[in-house]
């Protein structure tokens, strides 16, 4: 076992940080500038996400497995296309083995 804390850069190297979230970003595609223009433009949410959980796209895609729910993307979106919704609205969280926690 390693004597120190060390990891290689990889998706999920800090664990399933999505488990920490108590509210999640939900994108309204109709308002997203990239979707409206039909090309990879704006992408401000991708720039600002501190955990690299957003992939560029038309529109950008948020990886909820690792999104901690900080809300910075919602704050920075110039079109107001991202809203933060309490996690409780989405029911129970999935556990590591994929089963719903009861």
């Amino acid at each position, binding site marked *: 076992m390693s004597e*120190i804390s*060390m990891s290689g850069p990889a998706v999920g190297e800090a664990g399933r940080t999505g488990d920490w979230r108590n509210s999640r970003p939900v994108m309204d595609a109709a308002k997203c500038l990239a979707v409206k223009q039909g090309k990879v433009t704006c992408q401000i949410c991708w720039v600002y996400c501190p955990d690299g959980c957003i992939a560029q796209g038309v529109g950008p895609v948020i990886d909820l497995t690792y999104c901690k729910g900080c809300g910075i993307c919602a704050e920075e979106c110039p079109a107001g296309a991202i809203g933060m919704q309490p996690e409780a609205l989405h029911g129970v969280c999935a556990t590591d083995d994929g089963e719903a926690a009861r």
Partner: protein
Amino acid sequence: MSDDVSVMTGNEAAATAARLARVQVIAAYPITPQSPVVEQLAAWVESGELSAEFVAVESEHSAMTVCIGASTVGARTFTATSSNGLAYMTEQVWWAPGARLPIVMCVVNRAMAAPWNVLNDQQDSMSVRDAGWVQLFCRDNQEILDTTVQAYRIAERLHVPVMVCYDGFLLSHTMMPVAVPSPEQVDAFLPPFTQPFTVVDPADPRNVGPVVLADPRADETGAVRGGYMEIRALHHRALLDALTVIPETDAEYAAAVGRSWGGLLWEHLLDDAEVVLIAAGSLGTQLTLTVEALREQGVKAGVLGIRAYRPFPVEALREKLAGRRLALVFDKALSYGYEGPICSDLRGSMLGVEGAPAVFGAACGLGGRDVTPDDLAEAARRAIADLEAGARTRETDWINLHLEG
């Protein structure tokens, strides 16, 4: 002996040791009484006599941070500080051992403020005794030089940082003859450090020191990585291994250079001693005079000096102290509201030991208050009188305290 003997201060002895160890990165911020150590090193770097990077920083916190960064990429690093400088450094003083970096730091022991006082006691290093460094105390300038060189070998074998503690002014600014080993002797004893836990390789990028949570979990390769407790347990094990490595290193040094300092503990007239006087640092040298005087008065007294305070040499102390009547510990520090730190550690280590002595504590020398061999002998006589009056425990005896008036 081929050694070149020079008359030098404790601070020059420490700087000379760092030069002989071929340190590669030095970072420091000035503070009395440490400053002459790094002033000397800076002069040698400037003159080209020492091939090292000297990083002038704006605080002790940054000094240790530079050492952490340099040590992470495998450089041999050195810093020195005292008192409030060490306190200001404290956050990084914890980081270095947790990250298992073999940094060597001289702590030139000085009283903690408030009130301001630049003189000697040992409160500064005692206040970080739990941070996971090896702590070695020196009794004279020769031991400062030899211990600082040994500290690199200990640190690099165990991947733990080592604090070399010596008394401010009493040693740091006092001149004594010091035998300086040749660079060839030290090179033979101390090979270059080639096995850091971390490497910086652009082809194999790493996150060094990322957050770990409570439990072990698989990393990105699928290998199980320890949680916080596993990493700390391995760190603790390394410090316990130092109980073996410190004496081994002292013996290797004796073979290479011709001087040994006792490893974990040292002693003077201990064999038949019924009363054992205990201290760390230069106070131990004074105690040798005290026990010689006590013996002239018919008291079978001896000295047991603490060289390694962390790890605490529990087994060695039990072996040395079982069967004695009294262990009197002189602390130049206090856990305020309790007692001297060496005293309480020693008492704890004696619990349940057959034939354990009574353990009494005395506080002395705080903030540079003078303490003479005569004062120490008088304190020993008081402790013996208390023991003969039936005491098995006793409040801390403050030596040379003048509260009246």
